[in-house]
């Protein structure tokens, strides 16, 4: 059963959504910066917002089609929707909230299912509380339980693990994976976290300013981002604009000059002409810092540079290093100590061409 979405919806003068993607059974991770239109997209799929045009179908079932003027009411779409703002019923207990969507089942079965769900989310002891009497993360889990318990034909989760600590999050990610194995339905899962996208995602859709800017397997889309937004989402800390100076087809690289400096950098070949400007993204962890000029290295890019600042953040050290432009570089605390790095001290930066990813700029 596959969800296929192709819709257009104008929300305001400054924002309109135009999205197209398919999601077979399994997790489709929806990523994108704040305000990209993720919630709007889910609302359209759920039937809470009526698209201006397009078509939404789940397998054979057409949920919405502007051509045939079909618009299935929300109630009949049989979906689970975890709202970004949860929308727990404030006057009902957690138990009543969770059981709300399965009122057609016999009472016993209802309680069983509810308890199983809540236990797996570790909030079974809160069944008799009202939503205002539990903590933020507990509410999050209650809302998730409420949307899963109905055995929907499609699941829409808007940042379901938002307010949770690492442990609970990991536990629920596991639960969701198991749940999905049992229920082969499409799950559209909004998240800001590339970790979650990797952990759960069979496919990824990246939205930016209402447009789909990336779509495919997590590794394809996220590991080698072709769009600046994606690069930023997955934490490519260094994004630069460069101008193509020369192209070496044989090497598969091109030499580019970085905007605002004389520094030149070798990057993988792209479909661009000499003189065109492109944008490149480099992971801070992919840049090597050395205290002496590196020799006999395959890496093409070597820059003499100077350390601007050093900040330790837990298990890593964040260096800001100036080499015409400013690079963010991450090293381990041990490396930092062993190399005796200090603010103001000179270093060499080593960057492999293939660590530089060409990305399409945001508009």
């Amino acid at each position: 059963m596959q969800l296929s979405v192709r819709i257009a919806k104008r929300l305001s003068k400054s924002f309109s959504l135009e999205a197209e993607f398919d999601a077979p059974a399994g997790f489709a991770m929806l990523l994108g910066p704040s305000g990209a239109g993720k919630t709007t997209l889910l609302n359209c799929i759920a039937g809470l917002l009526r698209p201006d045009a397009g078509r939404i179908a789940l397998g054979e079932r057409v949920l919405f089609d502007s051509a045939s003027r079909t618009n299935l009411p929300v109630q009949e779409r049989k979906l689970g929707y975890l709202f970004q703002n949860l929308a727990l019923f404030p006057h009902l207990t957690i138990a009543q909230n969770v059981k709300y969507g399965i009122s057609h089942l016999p009472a016993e079965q209802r309680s069983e299912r509810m308890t199983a769900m809540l236990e797996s989310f570790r909030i079974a002891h809160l069944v008799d509380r009202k939503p205002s009497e539990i903590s933020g993360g507990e509410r999050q889990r209650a809302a998730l339980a409420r949307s899963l318990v109905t055995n929907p034909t499609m699941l829409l989760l808007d940042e379901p693990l938002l307010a949770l600590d690492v442990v609970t999050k990991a536990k629920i990610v596991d639960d969701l994976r198991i749940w999905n194995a049992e229920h082969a339905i499409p799950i559209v899962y909004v998240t800001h976290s590339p970790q979650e996208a990797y952990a759960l995602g069979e496919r990824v859709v990246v939205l930016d300013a209402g447009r789909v800017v990336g779509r495919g397997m997590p590794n394809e889309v996220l590991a080698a981002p072709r769009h600046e937004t994606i690069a930023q989402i997955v934490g490519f800390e260094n994004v630069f604009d460069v101008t193509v100076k020369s192209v070496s087809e044989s090497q598969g690289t091109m030499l580019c000059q970085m905007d605002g400096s004389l520094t030149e950098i070798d990057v993988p070949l792209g479909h661009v002409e000499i003189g065109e400007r492109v944008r490149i993204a480099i992971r801070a962890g992919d840049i090597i810092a050395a205290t002496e000029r590196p020799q006999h290295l395959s890496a093409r890019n070597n820059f003499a540079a100077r350390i601007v600042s050093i900040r330790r953040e837990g298990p890593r050290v964040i260096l800001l290093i100036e080499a015409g432009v400013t690079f963010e570089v991450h090293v381990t605390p041990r490396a930092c100590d062993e190399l005796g790095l200090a603010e103001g001290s000179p270093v060499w930066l080593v960057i492999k061409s293939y660590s530089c990813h060409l990305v399409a700029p945001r508009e």
Partner: protein
Amino acid sequence: MMDWSAIFLTLRLALVVCALLLIIGMPIASWLSFSKWRYKFFVESIVALPLVLPPTVLGFYVLVAMGSQSPFGRWYQSISGHAMPFTFTGLVIASVIYSLPFAVQPMTAAFGQVDRNLINASSTLGASRLRTFIRIVLPLSLGGVVTGVVLSFAHTLGEFGVVLMVGGNIPGVTQTVSIAIYDHVQALDYAGANHMALLLLAFSFITLSITYSLNRRAGIFYRPYRDSALRPEVGFAKTRRH
């Protein structure tokens, strides 16, 4: 001299009217709250109209509309065998018309305050519009609904002008307490009037007190943070400072 038949009649009338108003008023109020029709304000105004007419005048018009000189009155008489005014049924209909806005207005206001997000959530959970109304909208606006019911109950209890006109003050059939008291006053029998008025007052006061204190304890109305630990210190409450 305690006129028990008037008291029971009044209670029966108020209860019947109240029940009917719940049945009629809630759909109207929810339509008024949720409809997106352009000319809704028209209906809103019509529902509110009985408010502004003096009760006796309204009663007079209702009397004429129900009476044997009107087509409706004749039609009713032909199928039921008797005229509608001066019967309990007549009283009920007149009171329902008269008290309708008192039931509908607070309900409409309360329904309008219910968070649309919750209604959406209910729909995605497969609930029909009726179920959503009963399980979500209604409990969350119970304050307004109860206000509507209390106002219309009380309004019918104390109703005078319309009942006088349509009922005809027939003891045991259409003579309500308020009219009985009025009769006492008219007869300058102040002691008798006081007597009945006090009884009515005491009864009402006890009913109201029980309702309110029960509500306080059992929390019939949903209130945000009702008995949450956050309640005691809420910023709006006076914070003691020693």
